[in-house]
């Protein structure tokens, strides 16, 4: 079976993020870029499905500027078979809706039986694209999945989605869109052979016009980015443990009114 994995390049979790001279954008100088961690779970799951079935194809797709190719190379190094890079300045300000429409156009061209993505990209943190993609396609979807099994004839997938206080297990007919939550699997590291092999694998460049996108105007626009308001300076409570704890509880009760 053919599986499409949607991935995104994001700043590393340990990176400090600063606003650029354009107040609507971040300063990308000095940023280390990584594959969004939840997308790695999606890639890993797709590869495991293919390995378990002994056949199939895993295609990675991303929207992003030139540098996003590194993310596709990482996906290929992990074991994806080929990649599609939707790289078009017209999509630079894509919101989740625009992204979902673009991905839907790719899905229609590729006709996979399953689309996997991370539960959210850790830059914009919207966590909406997977569900919106499913809606645009008219496919069923399950978000934040913790487990997944596809039946022998690839007609149905059984998934466990994380909800408050538990897991809801569903049988879903394919094709479907699933978003991965941490805990689904443990992503592999690319091997040296994988990294070398990735250089020879195909990355197809695609423009918005190739996808026949009717609307690339974002439905949601950033008007400004702001730094977080500074927290008031804190206080280290001195003294031995007993006294410090008493003073802490008093402060929480009387000053902070937090308890």
């Amino acid at each position, binding site marked *: 079976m053919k599986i499409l994995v949607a991935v995104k390049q994001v700043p590393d*979790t340990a990176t400090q993020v600063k606003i650029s001279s354009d107040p609507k954008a971040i300063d990308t100088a000095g940023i280390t870029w990584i594959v969004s961690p939840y997308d790695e779970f999606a890639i890993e799951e797709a590869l495991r499905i293919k390995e378990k079935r002994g056949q199939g194809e895993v295609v990675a797709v991303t929207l992003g500027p030139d540098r996003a190719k590194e993310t596709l190379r990482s996906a290929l190094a992990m074991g994806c078979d080929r990649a599609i890079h939707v790289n078009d300045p017209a999509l630079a300000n894509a919101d989740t809706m625009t992204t979902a429409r673009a991905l839907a156009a790719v899905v229609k061209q590729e006709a996979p039986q399953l689309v996997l993505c991370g539960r959210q990209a*850790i830059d914009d*943190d*919207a966590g909406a694209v997977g*569900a919106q993609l499913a809606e645009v396609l008219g496919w069923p979807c399950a978000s934040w999945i913790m487990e997944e099994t596809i039946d022998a004839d690839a007609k149905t997938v059984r998934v466990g989605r994380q909800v408050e206080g538990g897991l809801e297990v569903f049988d879903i007919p394919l094709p479907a869109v699933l978003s991965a939550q*941490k*805990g689904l699997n443990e992503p592999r590291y690319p091997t040296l052979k994988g990294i070398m092999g990735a250089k020879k694998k195909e990355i197809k460049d695609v423009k918005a016009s190739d996808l026949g996108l009717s609307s690339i*105007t974002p439905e949601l626009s950033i008007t400004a980015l702001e730094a*977080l308001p500074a927290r008031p300076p804190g206080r280290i409570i001195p003294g031995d443990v007993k006294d410090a704890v008493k003073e802490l509880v008093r402060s*929480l009760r009387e000053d902070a009114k937090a308890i």
Partner: protein
Amino acid sequence: MAGAIWCVVEDDRKGTPKKVMSEVLGEAARLGGPVEAVWLTDKATDDGLKQLGAWGATKVWLLENAGLAPYRGETWVPPFAELVAKESPKAVLAPVTSRLRELMARLAAKLGVGLAADTVALAMNGDKLVATRPIYAGKLLSKVTWAKQPWLATLRPNVFKPAEAQAGKAASVERVSATIPSPQMKLVERREEASTGLPELTEAEIVISGGRGMKGPENYVILEEMGGVIGAAVGASRAAVDAGWRPHRFQIGQTGRTISPKLYLGFGVSGAIQHLAGMRTSKVIVAVNKDPEAPIFKIADYGIVADLFEVVPELTKEFKRLLEK
């Protein structure tokens, strides 16, 4: 009514709206209303409907149908979108919960409008709504606005000021008869997690977090004991989760849960940037760590530099004494 602000009801699956709805309804009123609630459920109780009125809803659009449990996007989105198209609210607001997070994304796609997810502030600017949402896991804030109505947004729990319940206020109830599509997704089972008896991490007003300083999974019991005393959820840092001490669902941080409690207490948490990203909007932050250089002290309101294994039992005792008064 046309131009109303709709609040999507999250309930306890037993017919009662969750407390977070007081925050959503309160915010809708601050934005100028008119405040209406939309409730998709298999069961709504009279008390639940009254509660929504007391929190400020003037009207409840009630879609009560056995086919709506459990939540499935494919059964919820079509009747909801139909109602939106018919009644033309100017905004649809929902709390961030597992199912409403997905529902709102799908609804936005169905309506072809924008979604501001996980907002922490909303404000009218002239006749436009502007939302503030944390990005890069709370390292920055982003102000966003919509190309067209209805404005769809999800609201982070514990951030917006709740409406005070007013006993005299009541909502009119409009029962909506809708065709619920037959679902393709079949529920096999619901597996409950072993209950800790403590509140859910993202809903809790107080969160206790244990990091690498906890030394092992067996020691979390002292945090759970404190949690029981003060009604707190107990979470963990990525280091502790990756070490296998706690399940993933308890992880706080950029690759875990983002929390915004009234009080956060971190024990043996160093404060790696990715952990801070998930909890820095907490209102009051307390840190206990042996290492005076631990980065968490930079954002803590109160810090104690000491061995957590000495502090925790003392603190639990003090909390007990305080709350027994």
